[in-house]
């Protein structure tokens, strides 16, 4: 029996080592793709530029509209496309400091409109489907019934999604990003949130929290289930959990070795 257990223990030890190596590789790739590559890309940012036609940065008040094609053009400091991972990767393109910021709107009154711009960069080597989804995570007084959301492609003006927050909640809006030789597609989204002037007093002192999500759906015909919503998808959280697990494993191995040494000493 003792021999059997010893044998089992050895097999388990090997398994632990193999899994630890795999986890370390996965973790390294994750950190590399999510943090190191964008940093390198930013560092090499002088190599190319990306033009966003008909595109005006919103004012502080957030009220902005598309330009007329002459004055609205701006050039953003670009990102080199020389470093591209093979797996589809999404990142917020940090060409404009005013972009990619979350909404934080207080004291909204009927007639108010807030605008944010999001610059999404997808690294992909084949046709992929970019999915947008709005998820209401908290609301009072059913504010989501009267807060209108319009998501448009800031470059083409095509409307991707339109409705109230409660209407678009957890619905996927898809755009196909065709493969290209650069293996990079930049998509610029304008998200407008507004409240109609007809909204009454019932919605005073109401609050709504929502997540805006973009992800690549690689499944054909949209059959793949979307990622779960909420905090479970936060990349930082993943990294922290993975790091904690690694730490735990090292502690476990250390404790085990220490116990073995103690037992060896006792046996002697």
């Amino acid at each position, binding site marked *: *029996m003792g021999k059997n*257990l010893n044998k089992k*223990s050895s097999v*388990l*030890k090997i*398994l*632990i080592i193999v*899994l630890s190596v795999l*986890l370390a590789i996965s973790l390294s790739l*994750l950190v590399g*793709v999510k943090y190191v590559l964008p940093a390198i890309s930013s560092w090499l940012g002088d190599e190319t530029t990306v033009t966003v036609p008909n595109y005006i940065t919103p004012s502080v008040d957030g009220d902005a509209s598309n330009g007329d094609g002459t004055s609205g053009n701006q050039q953003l400091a670009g990102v080199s496309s020389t470093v591209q991972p093979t797996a*589809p990767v*999404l*990142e*917020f393109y940090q060409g404009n400091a005013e972009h990619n*910021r*979350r*909404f*934080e*709107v*207080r*004291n*909204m*009154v*009927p*007639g*108010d409109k807030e605008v944010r711009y*999001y610059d*999404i960069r*997808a690294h992909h080597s084949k046709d992929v489907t970019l999915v947008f989804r709005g998820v209401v*995570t908290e609301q009072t007084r059913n*504010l989501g019934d009267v807060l209108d959301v319009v998501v448009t492609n800031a470059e083409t003006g095509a409307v991707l999604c339109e409705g109230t927050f409660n209407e678009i909640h957890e619905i996927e809006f898809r755009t196909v990003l065709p493969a290209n030789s650069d293996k990079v597609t930049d998509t610029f989204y304008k998200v407008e949130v507004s*409240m109609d*002037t007809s909204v009454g*007093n019932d*919605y*005073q*002192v*109401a*609050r*709504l*929290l*929502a*997540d*805006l*999500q973009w*992800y690549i759906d690689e499944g054909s015909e949209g059959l793949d289930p979307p990622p779960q919503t909420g905090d479970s*998808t936060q990349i930082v959280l*993943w990294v922290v*959990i*993975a790091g904690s*697990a690694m730490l*735990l*494993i090292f502690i*476990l191995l250390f404790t*085990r070795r220490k*116990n*073995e040494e103690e*037992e060896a000493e006792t*046996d002697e």
Partner: protein
Amino acid sequence: MNNSSLQKKVWLSIAAIVLLFVMFVVTTYAFVSAFLSVEDNLFETAKVDIDLNGGVAIFTEEDFALEPGRSNKKDFTITNNSTVDVYYRIYLDGIVGDLQDVLRFEIYDGEELLYAADMDDFNRDTPFVSDKVLAVGETKVLSTVVVMDTKAGNHYQNQSCSFDMVANATQVRNNPTKVFE
């Protein structure tokens, strides 16, 4: 090494393997998921709330011991307790009593006459609407003067009148025509 100790180690190893496997799946999923999220976008609506004279009646019964041609002046406050700037309007509601036919109301900001109307006309349809914005937290002191018509006859002796003075507020932003709900 005894069996129980070894068994304990085996269980510990199994636990470690399960944990490792879960973390491997999680990190791999995070790596390939290509997911972006802008979390916790916040939208909060404003509060529009106005206070008229702290809820205290502006006129009392004694204030209406009027004679034809006589008037009575009272100060009152209006405070913006909203979270945004507002316009306000004031009118009379629930008027009861015969005196309403011979009373006239005036509203002053200091010496400046802002509004004047017969009591019958000082209603929700033709209220006093402020021209100026009442800022967040601002308190305005106004005066109202009630005047009895000089032509009021003896018929109005010992008559009384009761009413509510009502104040409404509406947002300034996106409301150039001062629409009240």
